C-alpha cells in the first residue's frame, strides 16, 4: 500500500540498501584477496622469486581507500578494512618492507582519512605506522608521513588527559 502511495521514496531506499550491500560485499571480497596476496608474497620471498601479488592488487586497494562514498564502510571497525591495509604495510617474513609504491600509496591514502580511536583500536594500523617511524629502511618521505600520522592519531588521546586537568 505504501509503495503505491510513494513509489519513488520506497524505490530509492531499496536502491540505497542494495548499494550498501554491494559495497560491503565488494570490500569483503577485497579483504580476502588482500590476505591471499600477503601470503603469496611471503611464499615468493621464501622461494627467492619476485613478490608482486600485493603490488598487482594495490590499485584496487588504493581506489577503495580514496573512494569518498565508501569511507564509512572503509572506516567501520566491524568491516575492519584497515586491518588488511595493515597487513599490506607489514614487513615480510625476511624483514624486508613491501614495495615502495605500496608504502607511498597507502600512507598517502591513510593521511587523507579521518581515522578515529575506534578504528585504530580494531585495526592495529597504528602499530605498523609506528614501526615505520622506528625502522631505518623506509625512505625519508615515508617516514615523515608515518611520524605525522602517529602525532595526529595520538593527539586526541593525549589531549583528553589535558582536559581532565583543567
Amino acid at each position, binding site marked *: 500500500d505504501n509503495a503505491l502511495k510513494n513509489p519513488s521514496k520506497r524505490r530509492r531506499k531499496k536502491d540505497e540498501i542494495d548499494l550498501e550491500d554491494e559495497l560491503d560485499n565488494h570490500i569483503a571480497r577485497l579483504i580476502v584477496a588482500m590476505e591471499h596476496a600477503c601470503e603469496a608474497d611471503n611464499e615468493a620471498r621464501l622461494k627467492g622469486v619476485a613478490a608482486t601479488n600485493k603490488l598487482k592488487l594495490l590499485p584496487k586497494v588504493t581506489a577503495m581507500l580514496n573512494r569518498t562514498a565508501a569511507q564509512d564502510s572503509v572506516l567501520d571497525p566491524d568491516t575492519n578494512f584497515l586491518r588488511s591495509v595493515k597487513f599490506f604495510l607489514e614487513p615480510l617474513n625476511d624483514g624486508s618492507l613491501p614495495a615502495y609504491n605500496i608504502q607511498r600509496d597507502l600512507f598517502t591514502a591513510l593521511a587523507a582519512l579521518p581515522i578515529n580511536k575506534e578504528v585504530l583500536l580494531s585495526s592495529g594500523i597504528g602499530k605498523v605506522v609506528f614501526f615505520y617511524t*622506528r625502522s631505518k629502511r623506509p625512505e625519508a618521505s615515508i617516514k615523515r608521513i608515518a611520524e605525522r600520522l602517529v602525532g595526529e592519531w595520538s593527539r586526541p588521546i593525549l589531549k*583528553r588527559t589535558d582536559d581532565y586537568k583543567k
Partner: protein
Amino acid sequence: PRDKGLAVDATGLDKDALDDMENIFGNGDEYGWALDLEEDEEAQEREEQ
C-alpha cells in the same frame, strides 16, 4: 639498543590514556623481530666493508 616506546612525556597522563596509546601503537615489540633482522643485516654489511 634503540628506544622501544613512543617519545611521549608520560607525566600527567592518566592510566586510560596510557593504555589507549599502548593498544593503538603497541609496546614496541610487535615488529621487534623485523628491527632485529635490520640490525643484523647492518652489522653484516659493516663487517663486509
